[in-house]
């Protein structure tokens, strides 16, 4: 039988009371320059991967800074580590190192158990 009726959707609100800080603190402890991001989007504009597929490194980094890590593992593997973002960053953030630390952090804290891609993909 087909499913029908109402369903309860999870809220889209970023809730600071549910902030999972572990990954953010881990990245910041090894790459403190990550703090000074302005969200200017220079990294995203130059990103080799982002020019071909749906990958927004600026937004990904922002969501980590808001404690939102759902779907991160799949997302971060889109990065090819070419390093162009590091070249253009006006605040001199070592973004490639941020990416490497996120990858390590995901293993360490097993943070992206859920595979919810809602906030990373526009599709």
């Amino acid at each position, binding site marked *: 039988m087909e499913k029908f009726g109402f369903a309860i959707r999870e809220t889209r609100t970023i809730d600071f009371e549910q902030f999972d800080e572990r990954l953010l603190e881990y990245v910041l402890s090894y790459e*403190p320059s990550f703090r000074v991001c302005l969200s200017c989007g220079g990294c995203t504009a130059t990103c080799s991967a982002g020019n071909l597929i749906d990958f927004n490194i600026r937004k990904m980094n922002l969501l980590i800074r808001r404690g939102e890590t759902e779907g991160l593992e799949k997302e971060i593997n889109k990065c090819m580590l070419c390093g162009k973002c590091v070249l253009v960053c006006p605040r001199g953030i070592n973004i490639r190192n941020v990416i490497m630390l996120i990858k390590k952090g995901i293993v360490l804290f097993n943070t992206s158990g859920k595979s919810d891609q809602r906030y990373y993909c526009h599709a």
Partner: protein
Amino acid sequence: MINIVAIGGGIAGIEVSSLLSGLGYEVTLLEKNSELGGKLQNYDALFPNFRPASDIKEYIFNKCKNNGFDIQTNTEIIDIARKNGKFLIRAKNNETFRADAVVITTGFDFFDARKKEEYGYKIYENVLTSVDLEEKFKRKEKIRTANGKIPERIAFIHCVGSRDEKSGNHYCSKVCCITGVKQAIELSEQLPETEIYCFYMDLRMYGQGYEELYRSAQENYNIQFIRGRLSEASENMDESLLIKAEDTLSGRPLKMNVDLLILLVGMEPSAGTSCLGKSCKLEFDNSGFIKTKDPHTQRNYSTEKGIFLAGTCSSPMSVNDTIENARSAAMEIHNYFQAID
């Protein structure tokens, strides 16, 4: 002897009076309060280098002592009229002053945050303005919530009464951004365990050293900047505040509980500025500040001959902008009288 009257004894009034008096003019400085110094009296430390505001106070007060101009406090001016080529300046107590030129230095008032009712100022106890906070710093008070708790999380709200047509002020007050950064750093130094967030629409770090201070806030004090305007604040059972905004950079709504909410209030033309301007038929900008004759080349001239402007009666300014603007006013007035002779 040429007589000049400056109305308003804040930074601009004192600076312009002392310079004109040094140039040989007979100057009278009129102040409605019992003390000179204006808003500077309530400041603790100045951006971008945290120097004590008392340094600047000392600097301008020394000028009062060392330059022979007349100071009249408790003198509120209500009317400026022209009579036989002279200005007739009338005070509330019916005292009158005559002058060949007038400098308006009546300055600004802070936006009354109660008008932005949805932010809860004077409704919820844990909502303060940047002015309240600065006064607490000045009194060396420990920053606590209304019930005496150490705040765990504090949010600053930028552009309260600025860039907001709903509050009646569409313009940018210029100095609140950097004031927020300065106060956030001061709070973080006092309360290193407290999380501090700044909600902004744009961050306008226009002055020398401002951008560096903003970067330092992020880098050394871990202050978080979130791009989005607060929609509303509501009080929780424990008197903390639930605030809602959009995190516009991720395109998602956001909510957080904060123990203290600080509203960075903007600048408006002061009641004196509006009232005096009207009495002598000056033109006003659509922001309500007094209109200058030319926004680039004649910033100290009002639209009426012989009436000059110095300081924040013509637009929002920082302390150092005000000092410079007052100095240029003195030079312009001097040029004006040289040309007449």
